């Protein structure tokens, strides 16, 4: 009798929490919508304007197919090299940030905080700074993705390291293996396939990022896109978007396919 009473109270408390949650979300939503300065005029002008823009994108300017493809190739290359730089740097950091390898807690906490800090910024912010110091071009994009992706890859990879099976480590320890041996034969084989999986996943995200890095001058198809947007050449915008959609979709599927094979 008593237990059913407490569970009922728990239930009421829980549904109470949901109601408070709904109310807070609703209040935030109303406040936010007020801030958007939406009025009837903007909507009544905006919808036909968007319709006109979309209509102008079709048919895409096929004369720009070649230059769009060249830009997209550069975008893929930026994503490949940027992701790889991040993958290389994220490996030591992720072992440092993992809590189960016997490193001092201060080291893993510091590692986690650094990764979180890097993850805070969108890659476009990094893009701006690398364009300002390295000059416009794909190398700035590579650096932006390379540094920015360390945050997420390090975080995901350190979680993978934390989830490994301690059995092999203990077995090697029992046979008198030293630290590097334990690392090489018990840790690395367990984490490597999943590391490759997270790297491929980040590559998928970086490909999308690389397609807009050109908006701040960091190379790739975004440069063509930026110019077309500035001069309102919607048929060119349509062409570049078509290339982005097709290529990103194909590479997404290939990457997901490889990930499934590996893990």
């Amino acid at each position, binding site marked *: 009798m008593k237990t059913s009473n407490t569970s009922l109270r728990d239930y009421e408390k829980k549904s109470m929490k949901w109601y408070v949650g709904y109310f807070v979300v609703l209040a935030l939503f109303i406040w936010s919508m007020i801030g958007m300065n939406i009025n009837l005029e903007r909507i009544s002008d905006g919808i036909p304007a968007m319709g006109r823009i979309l209509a102008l994108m079709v048919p895409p300017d096929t004369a720009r197919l070649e230059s769009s493809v060249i830009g997209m190739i550069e975008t893929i290359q930026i994503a490949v090299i940027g992701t790889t730089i991040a993958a290389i740097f994220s490996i030591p950091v992720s072992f440092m940030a993992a809590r189960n390898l016997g490193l001092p807690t201060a080291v893993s906490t510091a590692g986690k905080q650094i990764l979180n800090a890097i993850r*805070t910024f969108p890659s476009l912010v990094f893009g701006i700074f690398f364009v300002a*110091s390295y000059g416009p071009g794909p190398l700035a994009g590579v650096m932006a993705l390379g540094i920015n992706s360390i945050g997420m890859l390090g975080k995901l990879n350190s979680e993978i390291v934390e989830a490994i099976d301690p059995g092999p480590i203990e077995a090697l320890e029992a046979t008198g293996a030293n630290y590097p041996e334990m690392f090489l034969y018990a840790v690395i084989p367990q984490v490597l396939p999943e590391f490759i999986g997270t790297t491929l996943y980040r590559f998928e995200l970086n490909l999308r990022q690389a397609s807009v890095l050109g908006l701040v001058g960091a190379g790739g198809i975004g440069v063509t896109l930026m110019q077309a947007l500035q001069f309102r050449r919607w048929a060119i915008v349509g062409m570049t978007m078509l290339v982005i959609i097709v290529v990103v979709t194909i590479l997404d599927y290939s990457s997901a396919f490889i990930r499934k094979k590996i893990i």
Partner: protein
Amino acid sequence: MSNSAAEEKPSRFMLVMGKIKGLLAIILVAIIYIWSARGVGFSLIEIIGELPSFFNLLWDMVPPNWAYSIRLINPLLETFQTAIAGTILGTLLAIPLILLCASNVNRNNPLYFASKGFMNLMRTIDPMLYAAILVAGVGLGAFAGMLALMFFSMAVNAKLTSESLEAIDDGPLEAIEACGGNKLEMIKYAVAPQILPTFASYTLYVFEINIRASTVLGLVGAGGIGVNLDTSLNLFRYPNAAMVILATFVVVVLIDHLSNVLREELV
């Protein structure tokens, strides 16, 4: 015995095949790397050689212009509003899309593949690109940013949640169907109770993505604190830019923390 001997031969053949496959994969990866490195003009000398100018740039940003922080309050609030409104509208739009993209709820094959295709198509485009186009259509400001986040978060949320939805326990769905319940009853009594906590958790995750994205939407004129970042950088006011970045950092960290607390409460 004869059985194991019969198994040995193909296994040795498979081993050789596996090695060849591995070798081919390594060669392919090497080719991709060389091709990419040449394409982007990758050179360690340039990367290391230009590092001082990168650090000089960072050095120009120190100390941040603390006085500028007061003028950032309103843009920051606008950034919040953009992300909140974009997330909520995107989430509402995602609900029908989630149901259409789950093969155990939507058993109409052509409709299922069409919805999935639409969702994947919407997801290939970065929110910045949506924003850049929308600014041309609906004008400069946060409204364009909100719509951009709405489209993107609809697609991302639909992908994540529909994949979880396809993995739910089909028992309750079949039970309702067996009792003669219709689609709506099935969604209300069998699907919603199972998927709502996951859906809420993914919505918070999408909100985190949107907060980050909303801080740079201003670079294409779609409102928020990114406008301040853009003008500070264009006028070479690096201490102001540093203040913008610092403020963004603090806010994103706080929101992430809050979102994590809420998510642990949910799941």
